[in-house]
């Protein structure tokens, strides 16, 4: 009786050990010793807002290539200048420049246009969204921007994921979660 019990216990222990091996070894997610994780992160590193009026092309860029933490993002040009009393055509572009070539995230936004919306807030500039999503609600990748008289002001671009659509046009009442929020200082000459 004693011997059979010992055998039984040994057997059980063996089964348990084997099952542990199976659990660990057969998991689909095993990384083995390869610990270089996800060098390609899904990030938005760059926001480009390109304003065109004939040959007058101004590109406002905010770029933070190392993401959250590390170095702060930078604006270029530091003091962008627009021409007074002019209508520009604006196109916004979001990039992930940690990848080469840079990934254009605007395409993903356009693919899911009904779940996204850009919002523009400014002092001294009038911005109108000129594109719509599949439901006919504003999207805001393409815009029309009209400058007033000379002066200086700010321009804030916000991208909301899953906002309430349609909404009253202000980002705060649209809800959703903010994926992009950058503020440019602008001079109008």
């Amino acid at each position, binding site marked *: 009786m004693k011997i059979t*019990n010992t055998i*039984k*216990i040994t057997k*059980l*222990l063996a089964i*348990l050990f084997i*099952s*542990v091996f199976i*659990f*660990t070894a057969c*998991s689909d*997610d095993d*990384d083995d010793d*390869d*610990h270089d*994780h*996800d*060098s*390609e*992160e*899904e990030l*938005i*590193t*760059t*926001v480009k807002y390109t304003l065109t009026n004939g040959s007058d092309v101004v590109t406002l860029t*905010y770029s*933070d290539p*190392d*993401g*959250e*933490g*590390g*170095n*702060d*993002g930078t604006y270029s040009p530091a003091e962008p200048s627009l021409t007074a009393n002019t209508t520009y055509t604006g196109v916004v572009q979001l990039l992930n420049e*940690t990848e080469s070539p840079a990934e254009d995230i605007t395409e*993903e*936004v356009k*693919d*899911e246009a009904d779940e996204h919306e850009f*919002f523009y*807030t400014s*002092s001294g500039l009038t911005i109108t969204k000129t594109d719509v999503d599949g439901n006919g609600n504003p999207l805001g990748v393409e815009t029309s921007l009209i400058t007033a008289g000379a002066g200086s002001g*700010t321009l*804030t671009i*916000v991208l*909301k*994921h*899953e906002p309430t659509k349609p909404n009253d046009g202000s*980002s*705060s009442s649209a*809800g*959703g*979660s*903010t*994926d*992009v*929020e*950058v*503020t440019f200082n602008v001079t109008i000459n």
Partner: protein
Amino acid sequence: MQRLIFLCAFLYCISTNTAAQDCNITFKGRIIDFHDKTPILGASIAVINLNRYTTSNMDGVFEINNLCKGKIILEVKHISCETKQITIDIDKKISKDIYLEHHLEELNEVILRANTKTDQSSVEQSLKKAVIEQFTDKSLGDAIKTISGVSALNTGNSIVKPMIHGLHSSRLLIINNNVRMFDQEWGDEHAPNIDINASDRIDVIKGANTLKYGSDAIGGLILLRAKRYTVKDSLFGSILSSFNSNGLGGSLNSELIRTYNSGYYTKAQMNYRKFGDFKAPNYKLTNSGVESLNGSIQFGYNSFEKGFDAYYSYVNNEFGILQSSHIGNVNDLVNAINSQQPRVIENFSYTINVPKQSIVHHLGKIEAYKRYKGFGKLTVQYDFQINRRKEYDLRRGDLKNTPVIDLRLFTTSLQPNLQVDYFNNLKINTGLLVRYQQNDAISGTRTSPLIPDFDKFDAGIYAVGNYRLDETTDLSVGFRYDFSDINARKEYNITDWQETYNYDELFPEFEDGDIKGTDIPTNPRFTYHNMSASLGLSKKFDNNILLLANYGLASRVPNPSELFSEGLHHSAARIETGLLTIGKEIANKFILSLEKNNNNFGFAISPYYKGISGFIQLIPVGITTTIRGAFPVWEYNQVAAQIFGIDIDVNKKVSNNFSYSGSLSLLQGDNLTDNIPLIHMPAANFSNRLSYVNANLNQLTIRLSQKTSLQQNRYPDYNFFTYNATLQENVFVDISSTPPSYSLFGMHTSAVFKFSNKGSLKLEFNIENMFNKSYREHLNRLRYFSDDLGRNYNLKLKINY
């Protein structure tokens, strides 16, 4: 001479033979304590098949006369001993030593001795099977929150993290079937992966005497126990189902147990739980559903001298997280705080969308024991756990179904344990622990992992002695030493490594290779030596009054998130940063308890004080601007802290059928370094219950309950202003202010109907939050976004067979 002997033998044979026929054999036995080999006086001995009785004398000796040849079955009984049945063949043996197990209660309860106990006299406090079943479709945290001094840190209503005296996560050990749970418990929003239906009893230990399981139980210990089955031939089981109006869901739990005369037993249990979107009094909580599938199997052999137990459990939980809590930057948080209701309210649905958590936990163990006469019991346990945690957030494009957090934690340990019960007044419990842990941040998430890959090795040794000074006084002393080594691999942002945190000068030895782009690979490695100790005294007085005093020294090594975490924490709109400079946390704990255990009138009054040096807390330190806007940065730091308070429980029998019970918990936590209150401390709360029980009328029970939680007025003010570019003004971010006091009322009714000898049907009808009160609890992480749950009608049906 030879002839004479032969003749004598011959005559003897004849005489025994004739005696056998005449049935006058005398069987002589002696009852001896298994542990210290002392004779046992006054044991009752029954010859079951002959219906005869006797008792043992001063020397433990008894005699049974006039026995016939053949088999007799003896049943030996003694107070506080395990009843023993033995079969003796009278033909062969006419004398025998019988060993009785004289310390049955103590053997299983070593850690509970000289310790504060939860009030056993009132059902709500003891968390026996009947109470656990009331929470069959809820979580461990919900169940033990009914105990005074225990609260919970919630993320919504399904993710419930238990808190003892304001402490949680790594400061609280959860022991599931004798295995210490390792399930990424460092996270505030990581609830224990436990199916409470698998356990028979839950003990909450607030005091110090927890050294058997670790040195770091600064908050306390939660012990989930499986049932020990009696040695007999039987097959039984139960089916428990529960239906709820809030969340339109419930659970189904089934268990089946087979035990054998030989001592073998086996149990299988299975549980399925499903809820859709829950409701607050005024709106639906979109995406708050739950789905879980759990199961456990147990197989073992149980005898007094030796036995084994093999156990495996599987827990698979999927928790929806309130959709409105998915926010981006701090302006979204301000909008949420200022809005009176969640921004997304949709129609009821069972679908669990993002954000959500999906966690699978495997736990297996095998334990074997052997008792040695006049010495003690040796136990060896091997266990393993695999925890796979996936957290999903709102993402774009191809990554929609890719988790943002995907971690797998593997833990395995071996624990030999020795209980020495040879000495009459001194019981010694000692053991060793070897544990290996591996965390794997699974690739493919396309995020930088919140917790890096690491390997951790632990070894520990402990000894606890319980000494009985006299009939009423017990003293316990324990020591433990632990060694830990953690070896991680993580890439740091080069600016953070060199400038923000100055690690290149503090930890140049951790740098592991050349800079790759903006990152530097590192290999942080830390070793720790931990000493812990406990001292306990228990003194019994007349009238069932018991006084317990405990002192404990506990120390805890920083957990991986305190050292390494880095990144955005969703639903909190904050960036959380661990620091390599965080050291260990050391606590001196004192607890006193004056208890009276009595059904007519009982109480427990337990004041406590904890002084903690190097208390690790996560607090806001500033604001950082990212491409997604502004985020507050929360950093771990260490301060001197103290937590003190008192838990009071009272029960009183008003009449034959009516009884009252109540409890009160008061607590204060101070950050002594900055001379401000500690963050996230439970507010004062009290509860009252009035029960009517009629044992003659199908055990009809009606209970009314009330629980009040006062507003927490002692909180650190970490509110701040942030510039809102859209509004072009500074806005106030009130993350600290606490919600007002609230009272909840509930009703519980139940009745039991027997339909056969073993079989019964129990019907239960309950109402929770009876008056549909809108409230928010400051220890709910989603309190910025929505109210807590509204009224719920619950129906339970339990069939025992």
